């Protein structure tokens, strides 16, 4: 919602929507705090060893080579990448960076009475701000200053201390966070050898577990040394019960020095977003056979952050807090929550219900995902879609045996290409939906796809039925074959250009950098390859179309004239539009309508045209048709003035 909308909210906020079927606010309120703990030691800051073929290939290859980083620097760069990503995807989450084993010691300025020797808090655990990002960037751009900080201490830091430092940060900075995670990045598989310090590290790890802090390790192996987590780490890692299996998180041992950064980045990015369940639910496979599942939202449109009102006059910039007061219209007195009644407008008056009735009328029984039966997957049409799907995965929390039963169902659906049809109430008093349940290969699990009801289906518009002749279809097939993408649609290849621009500009302003001049838009078609592979075929199709149209007109001469609109003006787009294969594109078609509007503009008689004509013309230009007639006229005048 833009700030402008907020201005007007007073007028229509009374008509608040009580339930849109899917309450995501709760879901988003779960906040995450992630602390990077990066070990600093001689091996961690050692420059990566060059492999043989690199030295041979010499300078020729050098330009294309990705820069190489020490493990510690690679870890920091990962942290930076994650940081920037989170600002976009989860702007309210916290992050911090703690180095341990450093010669220098720095731990906040809170004057705490406990000290953490050889721990260096590079970035305090908080919602990131521009100065801290700038500082991190500056360090990464200035190797000398960075190596000053990354100087290892003579004696490694005590793990117990490191874990207690994390404990302190999480309890003071991120109290009440649902998700708290400690990412430990290290190549040292046996940090504490003497018994007493081992025990105290184990105790401190246990404390973190009781605080609901989850430790996510990223272990670095080298060609000469395979990281052995059983030496120390299995004593401090717990099965958090989040996975239904006893699996350790599958960390990829990073061996190849060259791609260490990429590997680390992909491992960390995969863990970057804490898994947040949308719901915990019963899945009913048949009468008396219920298993436990959890639902996750894996695909959801991410929009640019909304604007805020700010106050610039004070000493520092501040976000303005808006509070809404409800006033009774007649008496202009404030209304307290217990005076508010919900009512429906009906027949010019209101129909009231008690809170009890209000809840009751939406109640269709307990939340459940109930399978009614199965159909072939081919029955699910592309248009059977109303919103995003939900991923479901078994949970042993409430029912043991859920996982194996769920897995057996998934196997069967995959094998026989079936889908489940289900009655689906995701949470208490949510609107029931009918959903298709389809198995998923990766990630392993299933998806529920909400189906439309008959009430949700719109009529088809009336358009003349003209079927293309076969030879024209053949020409189009040639075009399509040439532009075939056999791998299908891969979302990660298409970053959202509007979102990226939004945040690049904000980043540049916040970090006081120069505004980037050009934005790469990966969603634009690759015109050069289209021309190269299909240019010829498109031309041939265009010729075939002209020919087909000539034949069509000859066979049905009358029909062509029939579809004028009832007002007898030239329809927007113009009958000649499809011929633009040969013509200049500029102008966008609708020649006559253009002339009419232009003439009216010149004579200042736009006002005399009907709203329909104005709207059609605006539409043909892709401009907004919102507002009153005066607005439309003004918009058209603006258009010509700026031309």
């Amino acid at each position, binding site marked *: 919602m833009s700030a402008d909308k907020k201005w007007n909210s007073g007028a229509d906020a009374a008509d608040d929507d009580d339930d849109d079927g899917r309450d995501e606010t709760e879901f988003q309120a779960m906040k995450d705090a992630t602390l990077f703990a990066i070990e600093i030691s001689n091996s961690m800051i050692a420059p990566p060893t060059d492999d043989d073929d690199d030295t041979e290939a010499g300078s020729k290859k050098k330009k294309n080579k990705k820069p190489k980083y020490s493990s510690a620097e690679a870890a920091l760069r990962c942290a930076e990448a994650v940081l920037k990503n989170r600002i976009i995807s989860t702007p309210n989450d916290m992050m911090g960076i703690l180095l341990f084993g450093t010669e220098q010691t720095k731990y906040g300025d809170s004057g705490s009475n406990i000290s953490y020797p050889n721990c260096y808090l590079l970035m305090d655990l908080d919602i990131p701000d521009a100065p801290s990002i700038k500082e991190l960037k500056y360090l990464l751009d200035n190797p000398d200053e960075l190596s000053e900080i990354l100087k290892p201490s003579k004696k490694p830091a005590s793990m117990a201390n490191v874990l207690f430092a994390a404990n302190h940060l999480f309890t003071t900075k991120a109290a009440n966070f649902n998700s708290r995670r400690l990412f430990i990045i290290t190549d040292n598989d046996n940090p504490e050898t003497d018994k007493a310090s081992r025990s105290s590290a184990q105790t401190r790890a246990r404390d973190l577990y009781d605080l609901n802090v989850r430790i996510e390790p990223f272990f670095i192996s080298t060609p000469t040394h395979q990281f052995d987590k059983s030496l120390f780490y299995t004593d401090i890692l717990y099965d958090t019960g989040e996975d239904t299996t006893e699996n350790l998180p599958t960390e990829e041992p990073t061996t190849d020095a060259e791609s260490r950064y990429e590997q680390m980045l992909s491992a960390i990015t995969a863990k970057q*977003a804490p898994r947040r369940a949308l719901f915990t639910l019963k899945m009913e496979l048949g009468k008396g056979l219920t298993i436990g599942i959890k639902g996750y939202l894996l695909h959801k449109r991410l929009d640019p952050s909304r604007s805020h009102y700010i106050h610039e006059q004070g000493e520092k910039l501040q976000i303005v807090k808006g509070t809404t007061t409800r006033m009774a219209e007649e008496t202009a007195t404030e209304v307290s929550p217990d005076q508010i009644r919900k009512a429906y407008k009906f027949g010019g008056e209101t129909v009231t219900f008690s809170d009890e009735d209000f809840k009751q009328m939406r109640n269709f029984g307990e939340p459940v995902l109930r399978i009614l039966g199965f159909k072939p997957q081919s029955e699910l049409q592309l248009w059977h879609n109303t919103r995003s799907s939900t991923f479901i995965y078994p949970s042993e929390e409430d029912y043991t045996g859920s996982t194996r039963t769920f897995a057996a169902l998934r196997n069967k659906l995959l094998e026989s290409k079936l889908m489940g049809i289900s009655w689906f109430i995701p949470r208490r008093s949510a609107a029931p939906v009918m959903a298709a349940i389809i198995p998923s290969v990766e990630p392993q699990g299933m998806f529920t796809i909400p189906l439309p009801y008959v009430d949700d289906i719109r009529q088809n518009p009336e358009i003349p039925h003209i079927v293309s002749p076969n030879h024209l279809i053949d020409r189009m097939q040639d075009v399509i074959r040439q532009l075939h993408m056999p791998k299908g649609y891969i979302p990660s290849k298409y970053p959202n250009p509007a979102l990226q621009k939004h945040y690049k500009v904000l980043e540049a302003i916040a970090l006081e950098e120069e505004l980037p001049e050009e934005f790469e838009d990966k969603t634009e078609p690759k015109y050069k390859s289209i021309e190269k592979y299909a240019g010829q075929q498109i031309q041939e199709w265009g010729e075939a179309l002209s020919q087909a149209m000539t034949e069509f007109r000859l066979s049905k001469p009358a029909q062509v004239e029939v579809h004028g609109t009832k007002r007898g003006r030239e329809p927007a787009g113009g009958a000649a539009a*499809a011929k633009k294969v040969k013509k200049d594109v500029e102008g966008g078609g609708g020649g006559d309508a253009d002339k009419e509007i232009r003439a009216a503009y010149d004579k200042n008689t736009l006002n005399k045209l009907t709203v329909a004509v104005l709207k059609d013309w605006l539409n043909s230009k*892709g401009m907004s048709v919102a507002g009153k007639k005066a607005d439309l006229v003004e918009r058209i005048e603006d258009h010509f003035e700026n031309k």
Partner: protein
Amino acid sequence: MADKQATVYVVDLGASMDALNTGRSETDLEYTLRYLWDRITTTVSNGRKTDTIAVVGFRTDGSDNGLVQNDDNYTNISVLNPMSQFLMPQIRGLKQLLGPSATDQGDGISALVVALDIIEKYCKKLKYIRNIVLLTNGTGSFDFDGIGDIIEQIKEHRINLTVLGVDFDDPEFGFEERDKGTLKAENEKALKELCDQCDGIFGTIAEAIEEIQRPRTKKTRPVHSFRGCLSIGNASVNPGSMLLIDVERFPRTMVAKPPTASSFAITSERDQVDGSLQRIRNTRTFQIEDEDAPGKAIDIGREDMAKGYLYGRTIVPISTEDQEIVKFSTEASLKIVGFIPKSGFERQICLSNSNIIVGSKANDESIMALSSFIHALYELDSLAIGRLVTKVDKPPVMVAMAPVIEPEFECLVEVQLPFAEDTRQYKFAPLDTVRTVSGKVLDKHRLIPSQELQEAMNEYVDSMNLMSLEGLNDPLLPFAQPEDMFSPVLHRIQQVIRARAIAPDEDSLPDISPVLLEYSTIPSGLEPEEDLDRLKQAADVCLIPTKAKGKKIGRDKPLSGLDVGKLLEERTKSRRIDKNNPIPEFRQMIASAQETGDIQSLVQQMGDIIKDTIRHSLADLQYSKAIECLRILRDDCITFEAFELYDSFIRELKSFTEADRRDFWSRVRKDKLGLVLPGEDSRSKTTIEESNRFYYGR
């Protein structure tokens, strides 16, 4: 916008309508009114000014119509409601008038003429949908003299005539009344003939009432959401080889929302009694923090505000004039990015409602061009991937398009796809293998289905095949086809509102109409019992009792299985909680506590730490920390069946905050950390009212 509509309901109110017939517990009139009220309230709920209704009663005690003055053929006919938009006052007014009369005098055909007269005067020659609905039990007088003229008139004005009778025979519906009186039989016959001659509908009320059980779907006129060119290639590369087709886009699915409730206020005692409500207006005030101001905030005016965005915690001011630089400029377009095989398409990534794309309707060439595109996609079993901008400067979206070819209609169906940022990379353990701590990969495990389970599942799924079943609402459709399923919430809320509108004094809600629950349970046409029993045995799913879950605290071990409890013994023995590490130590100690006295002391210590934290908090800086301790304290007290200790502490804490830490108490209230309720521990006697009083009271 739908067409204007005028409907006259002609209702038989004769004394004979007050009789009970055919074993019904309702009188003929009550039975008839069920239908009438449903129709009227449906019209009212549409809220359209141009959908007007008039109601004419015949066999009424009085005579009140425009024709009776000059012609006494029109006695005992009353216009109960002139042609107008129906609102609540009309409903109330009509309710008063719709009772059985004391007479059986009054002619039904004359009433029809009165209805014709009303329509003619109201609609004149304008464009209207004209309807007359006659409701009767057919036992009164129907004078068919001069019916020819009336038929002519009905035809001339294109009036849709519907005649519905109580216990009229209808072989198609399968109803025939026994011992029908001769008069009624004659009337039925003549009325049927009348309907046949002017293309009207003739039926029995029972059928109509059955019909109204079925929810009505509202038709929305298709409105295009995009007009522009579907393009392949770009003129800047080679204008000769750019493919352009004029297209329009319309919604195919759009979730129909139930009516939304608005908030109103009861502002006085009087309102409370007569139920009148006041409109609410929202006013917004804007504040910024100010340390020196009372309440630590000051109001500011709109003129002192600017616009900005947040980048992390940092505020980035961007003035309205500068908005341009964050905007991503686009032009309305639908550009083809490429084509993908349909087979590998991951159906689950579709994000939005679906739309259809058709050739521009005034342009035959576009329609033919798009037809070649649709057929080619279909024959190659492919989908098109495109980049769509619906309006100038709207952000682009990626879409998938699939061909649809029906006998008289062709289009592309389009659904939005996610961008890179829209996909969350959560990790889930595989379901077909289990990896142990030592890294071994197993394919036999309690989490992996055994062969027996798999076979039982296969057979169960096969026995639940829905393909042979017909639609539960329309047998011509397949089972669970979207066209056969009604939105339960939408129709339920409409049903409830309409029922309450005509019976405002009713206390309870009507039952959910069974048609809305058709698809809520396994269809009766399937018989999977045997296979289900086998599956249940093989799956062996067990519910874990709630109590067992709580007891787990303190027993967990790290992956290596190391006995941490032993390590902790040293610490737990001391029974002193370190204020620098309160939560873990409290949890560890309470888990190992043997006696109630120990727990009491731990709760005491934790309480002191919480109060200390609040006391030393600079403003509200440490509140979150204290709240977290409080939550753990509460949760664990409940788990270890010591909720009384928590209750007494929270009472103490309330008085502690009353001095100058009231703001902390509001946090307690917000996080619902007050007295333990019976739902949390069955031994608690605290009622909701008590709990609320405790939260809000002084």
